[in-house]
């Protein structure tokens, strides 16, 4: 893998978008917990809801809803990304 030019993370997802996980950055308990909850390589994730102050957010992964804080979501790197047409995102 060459140097990361622009990191595409969970945090970039807009409502209705989905992405496929490439890897999780960092080490330690948070990473293990995320992996155990289904955030593993190849899993598809979508954004469901954003809390009143923009943090945390709720994601859809492996058919259930889970909420993560933005600082943790930012460690989940996506390999591909599919936006919803007309979601107002300039891709």
């Amino acid at each position, binding site marked *: 893998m060459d140097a990361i030019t622009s990191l595409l993370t969970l945090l970039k997802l807009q409502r209705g978008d989905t992405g496929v996980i490439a890897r999780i950055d960092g080490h*330690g308990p948070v*990473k*293990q*917990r995320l992996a*155990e*909850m289904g955030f593993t390589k190849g899993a598809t994730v979508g954004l469901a809801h954003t*809390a009143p102050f923009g943090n945390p957010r*709720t994601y859809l992964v492996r058919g259930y809803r889970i*909420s993560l804080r933005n600082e943790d979501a930012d460690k989940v790197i996506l390999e591909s990304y599919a936006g919803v047409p007309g979601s107002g995102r300039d891709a």
Partner: protein
Amino acid sequence: MDVKVSASSITKTVTVALLGNPNIGKATLFQQLSGGHHQDVRFPGADVRMEVGIVHHAGMRMRVVDLPGIYSLSSTTPDEIICRDFIMLDKPDVVINVLDAGNLERNLFLTTQLIEMGVPRVYALNMSDEAHMRGMRFNMEALSMKLGGPIIETVARFRRGVEEMLDAVVDTIESARKYHNVAIAYDDHLEEAIEGVQQLVKELHPETMSAGHARWLAIKALEGDKVVLRRESEHESLVTAIEDKCRDIVRMHGDDAAVLLADGRYGYITGLIQQTVEMTGALRHVNITDMVDNLLLHRVFGLPLFLAALWLMFQATFTVGQYPMAWLDTGVVWLGDTLTAILPAGLTRDLIVDGIIGGVGGILIFLPNIMILFLFIAFFETTGYMARAAFLMDQVMHSIGLHGKAFIPLIMGFGCNVPAIMATRAIESRRDRLLCILIAPFMSCSARLPVYVLFAGVFFADWAGTVVFGMHVAGVAVALGAALMLRTVLFRGEGDAFVMELPPYRLPTIRSLIMHMWDKAVHFLRKIAGVVFVGSIIIWFLQAFPRDVELSRDYVAERAAVVAAAAAPEVQRAALTQLKNAEARELQKERYLGQIGIAVQPVFESLGFNWQTTISLMTGMVAKEIVVSTFGVLYNVGGDVDAGNDSLRAALAGAMPPLTALAFMVFTLLYMPCLATIAAIRREAGTWGWAAFSIVLSLALAWLMALFVIMVGGLFA
């Protein structure tokens, strides 16, 4: 043996554990199995008390243990450690793994770890009705083969499939069939690592060990659970060797072994689901949870709706609760009056009427309020709204250094602080957990409710519901303030991540709500029967003795003089009542309880508390329910102040100004946790030091905040 027992009458007792993720109907299944009757049993291995229900099925007596809901057996949270230790050390005969049929993928993660433990298992594919509605079809035979145990479709809330599940448990135990020879295969590199560690384990272990057990130990070690290894052998060299191996893996793959194992497990699960679960039609059905979330998690309306729900809860507790409360009150008064009429005058009658009925009855009448409060909490919890509340509040919680998950125990604290403190087990990091344990007692539990209901009713009758709500808000504010303070002084540094499931919304059955409420009611009544009963008797004794005291006036002679004066009847009655109350007040001061109160009262001088109030606070240290019963005992001594149910209210109204009453409510809210809570803090925090810290912290905050109320209130007076 002296007694001959026929073979048929011998029932075999077996232990069955319920294991599964949170929010999948495991508690409902336990309720169905135990029929609502359960006892707390301490298990030596896991060293915790767990709820056990007894089930008789096909000649077998089963002790069903409800294990805490967990997502993983990696031993990173206290609950996970409890489950691991229970399965490993207390060795249940069968583990029933409860699965949410509609969310198999994540549910099976725990299953893959359970399979590796090599214990006999039965699977309950629960909520299968929901999954069927979504068009899912399960190949049960294939699932059973792949998971290494019988699997039964169940719908716990309607008791569907429960008998078949129990049949499968009996069958598994009796046939002792080897169901557990399933191996989850990982990728080559990981397999190599596992085999390497497995080899080390076998070599260094003194006794012979089965390959399966060695493999499990190797996987646990790679997952980072060193406790299991240390328990199995004393070889420090083994642990070091494994740590080296883990470092190798990280170097080779650029990832933790635990993460690679999770990848492998999900890979296995994905394959398994492809082979066993079929999606037929109805894929794009209307998703109710999404629709409800669009409203309840709305970025603008979400928080106001949540606050409105809380306000509604307290308003209902007060307004709806006051009707059954009045009936109970009438009953208690009637009982007191009847016994007064039947029993001969004397100490025994005083003990029963003033001590026991006054004390226990004074609390019993609050049972409806408490049940309504618990009904709301049960509703929020079982519908899935509680997790949404944590989601909505996380940013606020995080800004003061708390974990969003701490919000759930704090809300549960409105019911009772003891389960709230136990619920902190869901928080992973010890520091975050300790912080939550320390601030949980500031959440106004239902035992404090009677004080507010009484005082708000007497002093702020027009907005009693709002005052009660306000007291709870004040509790939250102090808890958050204390968290901020502790975070900056004691617990510095980064907190835990916030990783929380939002379960689908589900409507609980009326039955399960009622059972939940009934459970709490029984708990409350037991407390009354024990702590409050004994407390009331002690308080009564302290205020009834010593018997012979010297009074400043000759009340007997004065009474005679009033009678002799032969004034108008109402004038005479008023004069007599006044005399009687004056005598009672003087007597109270001379009794032991009065002496104690007068001795301690100077501490509360600046708060304006009189000695009766002081005594109530002191007795409330046992359990806050006793505060009101102490008032009941203390102010009823004079009798006839205003015969019947309003006597205490009338007495209180004259005893202090509203501002003092408010300060008293604040003090009651915050001052030291009750004995049961102190015991819970000690158990969950691990040392008496933290329990003592909690007592000192709460007393200091209570005193300061009450003073604050008096001073600020004084500005407006």
